[in-house]
């Protein structure tokens, strides 16, 4: 193994925890990642040493809190190679970022007859906010997948029209593990003068993502899936587009001057951040980015690939193991079903072995329907996972077969 997962595990206090007297095999990082001591300590240190409401006053603590918050923003900007930290808006999560775009971009700019092009593999976060636009006659279109779980790019090329104002696509599918060629999709979108949005919730934690290279107009992701705390996420947007957008939430902090009946908006990025911000979240995310950068995103990606290959070898030997797509599953996400057993029961029995996996519809019901499945079990890997944990998963799946007499 190129990456020493055993060593990294020591940084994560939760791995000291035993469940059912067994060491935790956490194979659900695509839902949310565990947190290293460095992130926990950064948050603790912020509250013990620096806490104040940023941007509000001029005393020492306030100055420190403001600097800490804005330094975190700079860190995020560097991490995804944004042109400027003005382009980084702190949000709660990917869902919130998509809602900002639906309300502040789409509702302001799209009209009857316009189209939004999505894909069938999108998470609900990148479907449901856009459905709101249907009320005013905007049409949603969905690009299908090929039989191997990749996106049908030919179809995308055919479906995009002069009415397509927005193309919004996930960089990496949380069910299939498919990594989409977002650079190419972005080129197609921009040739068509469409706005190009990338859902980076699964890609940003697991592989190098560079917004300049992708040339996306917007990128959304969540801190909690990349070793950071919950309730902090990022909406990246090109500054020239953000400048022209109306704010989503209105109130304090996002203003320059308030009269009784009108208000001058604050500059970017604060225009989009109403109220007291989540400094603790930003601090935690900043520490998470430090940690990820030290390990190296390419190394993490390689590690997940190695684990995926190992897992497929191991799991394919188990009776009744049916991966959703065989052969393409090298991206740290293994979705499968066990013949004769519902994914919920699979997950429940695995818990006896302290193996944590996701089960259910994965917040991707349209994709599930397309696959003809009601539910799926998913194991996902991250930098702290080991081959031993996959062995335990295999042991647990044998038990599933035993209980359900498969």
């Amino acid at each position, binding site marked *: 193994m190129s990456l020493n997962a055993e060593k990294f595990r020591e940084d994560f206090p939760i791995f000291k925890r035993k469940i059912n007297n067994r060491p935790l095999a956490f194979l659900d990082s695509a839902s949310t990642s565990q947190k290293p001591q460095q992130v926990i300590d950064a948050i603790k240190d912020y509250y013990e040493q620096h806490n104040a409401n940023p941007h509000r006053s001029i005393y020492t603590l306030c100055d420190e809190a403001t600097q800490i918050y804005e330094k975190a923003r700079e860190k995020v900007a560097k991490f995804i190679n944004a042109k400027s930290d003005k382009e980084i808006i702190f949000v709660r999560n990917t869902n919130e970022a998509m809602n900002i775009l639906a309300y502040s971009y789409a509702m302001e700019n799209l009209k009857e007859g316009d189209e939004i092009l999505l894909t069938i593999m999108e998470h609900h976060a990148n479907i449901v906010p856009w459905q709101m636009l249907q009320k005013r006659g905007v049409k949603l279109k969905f690009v299908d997948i090929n039989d191997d779980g990749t996106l049908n790019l030919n179809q995308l090329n055919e479906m995009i029209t002069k009415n397509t104002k927005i193309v919004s696509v996930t960089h990496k599918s949380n069910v299939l593990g498919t990594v989409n060629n977002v650079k190419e999709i972005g080129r197609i979108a921009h040739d068509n003068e469409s706005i190009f949005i990338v859902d980076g919730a699964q890609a940003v934690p697991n592989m190098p993502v560079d917004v300049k290279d992708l040339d996306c107009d917007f990128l959304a992701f969540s801190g909690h899936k990349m070793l950071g705390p919950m309730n902090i996420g990022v909406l990246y947007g090109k500054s020239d587009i953000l400048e022209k957008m109306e704010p989503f939430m209105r109130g304090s902090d996002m203003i320059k001057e308030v009269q009784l009946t009108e208000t001058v908006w604050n500059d970017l990025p604060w225009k989009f951040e109403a109220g007291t911000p989540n400094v603790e979240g930003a601090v935690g995310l900043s520490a998470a980015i430090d940690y990820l950068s030290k390990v190296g995103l390419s190394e993490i990606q390689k590690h997940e690939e190695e684990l995926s290959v190992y897992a497929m070898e191991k799991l394919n030997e188990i009776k009744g193991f049916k991966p959703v797509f065989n052969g393409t599953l090298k991206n740290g996400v293994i979705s499968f079903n066990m013949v004769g057993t*519902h994914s919920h029961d699979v997950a*429940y029995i695995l*818990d006896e072995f302290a193996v944590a996996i996701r*089960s259910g*519809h994965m917040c991707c019901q349209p994709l*599930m329907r397309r696959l003809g499945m009601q539910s799926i079990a998913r194991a996902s890997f991250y930098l702290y996972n080991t081959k031993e944990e996959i062995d335990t998963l295999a042991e647990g799946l044998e038990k599933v077969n035993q209980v359900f*007499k498969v």
Partner: protein
Amino acid sequence: MNSEIYRETILEHYANPVNAGDIPDADATARDFNPSCGDVVEIQAKFSDGIVKDIKFRGEGCAISQSSVDILLGIVKNKTIAEVENFTTEDFLEILGIELSPLRLKCALLGLNTLKTAVHTYLTRV
């Protein structure tokens, strides 16, 4: 948490449900989901003289949600509406007799909640 909840009766009702099916002239139909996992149950019931004359379900989901509803319908068939209304969660869990975590409880009670809705729909209509 352990796999002891998968008792023989649970697995038997899951593999071979006795009350699965449709009632084409049903008096009441109710459908409910478990939004976190997507499990679904639809119950159709026929009443006469204040009695549950016939009751069937269709559903998709885990062994606990599907076997529970099958067992439940066996219990309430031919009971009076009053008896069904007085049948509590506690009564049902005692009959199931398995130890369930809070998350798993939702699976086990999906059928009972759907049944209560079906009865309620019927009562508000007649």
